[in-house]
């Protein structure tokens, strides 16, 4: 069933009347901003566009498909509620200004998702990014996100962060103010999303299969949904229904 879901997406487009977005401007649309920092920042072309396209088709969110890139010292960083840092190789240290700005951004309600897009076996980014995170948020340490976290139920009911790789089943985060301003995944989620103009996937999934790619999309959609709805799915009105469905799946 899941294996054919992406195919169905295209079919469904023809059946349903397309939801027309009349947002008052590009700034008001939900979109992804990449942190232009380190060697991986531009390494996943068309991934954000594809993800946001899927978001627009599967959810009611009005999206800005094209991502934008901002440097860590750029004041425009403070205009983007969802910031994604694609990283590989050494994560360069931030300047003092950048560190201060990102810290301010995170404490003001911004969300930074760090996606380790290193090739299998390359631990350089993982090692260095942990140091960068410590510098950005000295008072807390990265912790493993438990399975009850809203990001696993913000739209799809999933149980881990999926991506092009299956490097780690765990998602890590810094918790603050009942939210997770920093989320760190190691499975190259955005690597699974990029598609060429001709419709081919730009990168293969490992170990592979369309199910893995679909799961990566679902995690990506949940990430976008979490960035807009925050802990909405933890509201009491949802809790019982979600519990019931999770139990159903467990059988």
């Amino acid at each position: 069933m899941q294996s054919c879901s992406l195919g169905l997406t295209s079919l469904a487009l023809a059946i349903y009347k397309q939801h027309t977005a009349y947002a008052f401007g590009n700034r008001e649309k939900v979109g992804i901003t990449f942190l232009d920092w380190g060697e991986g920042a531009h390494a996943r072309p068309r991934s954000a566009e594809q993800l946001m396209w899927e978001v627009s088709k599967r959810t009611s969110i009005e999206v800005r498909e094209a991502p934008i890139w901002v440097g860590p010292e750029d004041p425009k960083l403070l205009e983007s509620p969802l910031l994604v840092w694609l990283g590989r190789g050494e994560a360069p240290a931030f300047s003092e200004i950048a560190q201060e700005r990102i810290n301010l951004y995170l404490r003001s309600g911004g969300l930074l998702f760090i996606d380790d897009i290193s090739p299998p076996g390359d631990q350089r980014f993982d090692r260095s990014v942990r140091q960068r995170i410590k510098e950005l948020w000295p008072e807390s340490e990265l912790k493993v996100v438990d399975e009850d976290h809203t990001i696993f139920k913000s739209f799809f009911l999933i149980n881990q962060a999926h991506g092009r790789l299956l490097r780690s089943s765990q998602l890590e985060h810094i918790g603050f103010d009942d939210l997770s301003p920093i989320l760190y995944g190691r499975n190259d989620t955005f690597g699974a999303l990029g598609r060429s103009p001709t419709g081919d996937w730009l990168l293969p999934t490992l170990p592979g299969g369309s199910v893995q790619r679909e799961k990566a999309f679902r995690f990506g959609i949940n990430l976008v949904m979490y960035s807009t709805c925050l802990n909405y799915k933890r509201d009491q009105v949802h809790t019982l229904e979600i519990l019931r469905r999770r139990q159903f799946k467990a059988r």
Partner: protein
Amino acid sequence: MDTLLNTWLNPPSNFNQLSLVWLGSWSTLSLILVALLCLATLGLGWYNTQKLNPMRKSILFILRILTLGLFLILFMQPAARLEEVSRVKNHVAILVDHSRSMNLPHHDQNKDISRVFQAHQSLKNAQTTLKKWSKKDHYIDYFSFDTHLNAHDHQLELVNSDPSGNQTSLINALNELSTRIPNQELAAVVILSDGGEWTASGQIDPPLKLMSAVERLNTPIHTIALGPKTPSLDLSLAEVRADDFAFARNAVSVDVDIQVHGHQDALSCRVSLSRGTDLLSERIVDFAPGQTQSSLKFEFVPEETGEESYTVYIDPLADEQILENNLTRFSMRVIRDKIRVLQVVGNPSWDQRFLRKHLKKNPNVDLISFFILRTNASVQVAAQDELSLIPFPTQELFEERLGSFDLMIFQDFTYQGYRMKRYLPLIRDYVKRGGGFMMIGGDQSFSGGQYAGTAIEDILPFYLPPNGKNQVQLGEFTPTLSSSGMRHPITALSLVPEENQTLWQELPALEGNNKVGKLKKNAQVLAWRSAANGQTKTPLIVASPMGKGRSLAITTDSIWHWALSPKAIEHDHGSRAYHRLWSNAIRWLIRDPALNPLQVKADRDRYRVKQNLSIIAQSLDESYQAIAGSSITLRIEDISQGIANAKLITEHRGKSSENGELHFSWQAPKEGVYRVLARSTQQGGEQEAEDLFVVAEDLAELKDPQARPDILKAISQHSGGEILSIDDSWDSLQRKAPAVTQVNRREDIALWATWWALLLAVLIPSLEWALRRRWGLS
């Protein structure tokens, strides 16, 4: 000696006291020196007569003693003191209890004779005795007492005053008596009372303090106990405990303590709790034989906010004498526990994200959010169980639970597609009944949400242009405050208007807005999108009263930029402005009483009858600035029988002062629940505000009106006084005699300055000298 002197001197009759005094005012040293000199002289005289025979020796020694004695008399200057003295009268204090319980019957059988009447009667009976005392040794001082001692010039004044004290304090009465009359001047105290030591919280047993006060007086205290010897049948509300305020839709409890006296057999009574005239609950309370106390708890759930009067009442028993203590009134202000907000969002967006975060962080907000995460147009590629979506419970939200919300927010949400049309009139009615409604812009709001021509348009502050997705204006802009917006509580980012305007000018730019139609009557535009690029200015934030409710329209979905943007974050005021705006909007929409342009408040919630109360009304304009000279009418109504049966008691009209205030002082003539209703006409619109207060006597004494002769008995026994009945004679009452005398005239007669004293002073030494010469001594 005095008698001898009296016989000898025979003083004039106008002197009634005679005594021997010494007028010589020598120092102690002088006296010692003189005494030593006399002893030496005596010793020398004895030594010089050694060769004489014992007879002659004794004669000379006696003469020497007499000589020295005479010398000492002349030295000490003795005198007879004649005095005319008189005694100073001391005081007999008569204390009559004038607390309210003294109005209760003295006998069980005869309800016409009150305790105070009997006390006054007893005083009249003692009139002869009191006259006798006052003639000779005592002044008679009359006092009444309740919580304090009150002096009366004469008995008639005391008898003519009514007992009205709300509490009895024997301790205070005795302590204050000792400050009025010095203890040494007190001959006796007579107390006529039904006993008891009362405080605001009820009667207490005779404490050590009372006995200390008795001891301090150091005077016999005689007591006459009034009131029935055995308790009379009486049910009373000993205590009703309820909070001053409660939370709407939350259970409230009222604790009631009931006392019963004078019953031998088991009995039952009915206790009820009413709000206004509406009976809320009633309970039957059973008392076993001998049981004197029982407690019960009423619970109810107030649905609406506001202040109401409540009454707890015990149905009187057939033979019950005292009915005043069967009823207690109190007022309770019902407030919101939390502001219940329903946020319905058409699609997840940054604007919704930041508003939800603001609402969730506000501890006073109980937020129910419903976000449309997927529409019919969305592609469904996952099974329902793989999604976290739940159905949109329209019937539950907009019909069954509609009344439970204080505020409803439609944020970029269209009703179409959810079979909601039939609920729209219900939402309109909910707002007109007092609910708050806010529509926030977006392509699915206003005409974009197809609301033109629906019941929702009725509760918007403006008319809507024809439905359609193109009713929007794009482009960035900085909003401009209107003149109303400069002072309106919603747009008041600062209390200083000039500073407020500056803050608005410095806010991050917004983007895009919905087009709207003509403003409705009473709508106030607080902020505009200024005219630019050939476009006309359009309302951005518009507020309007809507029936009893309120409506607010914000025609953009980009206010989140005030929460997250370089300007908002890096300038201190930015993010604060975002939170201030929403907090202000919510408070205004839920009709936070503190934001009502007309305010009225009595200075207390509870008064006694004829106690001065002060009412202040304040009139503010639409910009919440004080209006001077505004006509304000204050109506004070008795609503003891419910608001529907309100009786106008008094009305006061006046103009507000420079600070918009009108002051009114008044005294409630009788017990009851009162409402002060303020009305003013401001700029064409009538404003109304109200406050409630209860006027009730302090019934502390009547909660347990039984006489306490045991307390009076303890006082008498401790002070050495007597316990009298009302018919006993006062003649033999023990009194301390006056201790102080007064000397009116005094005269001293010098006993040494007489001719015979001088003669003896010459003769005796001469005789001694002659005999010494004759018997061969030098």
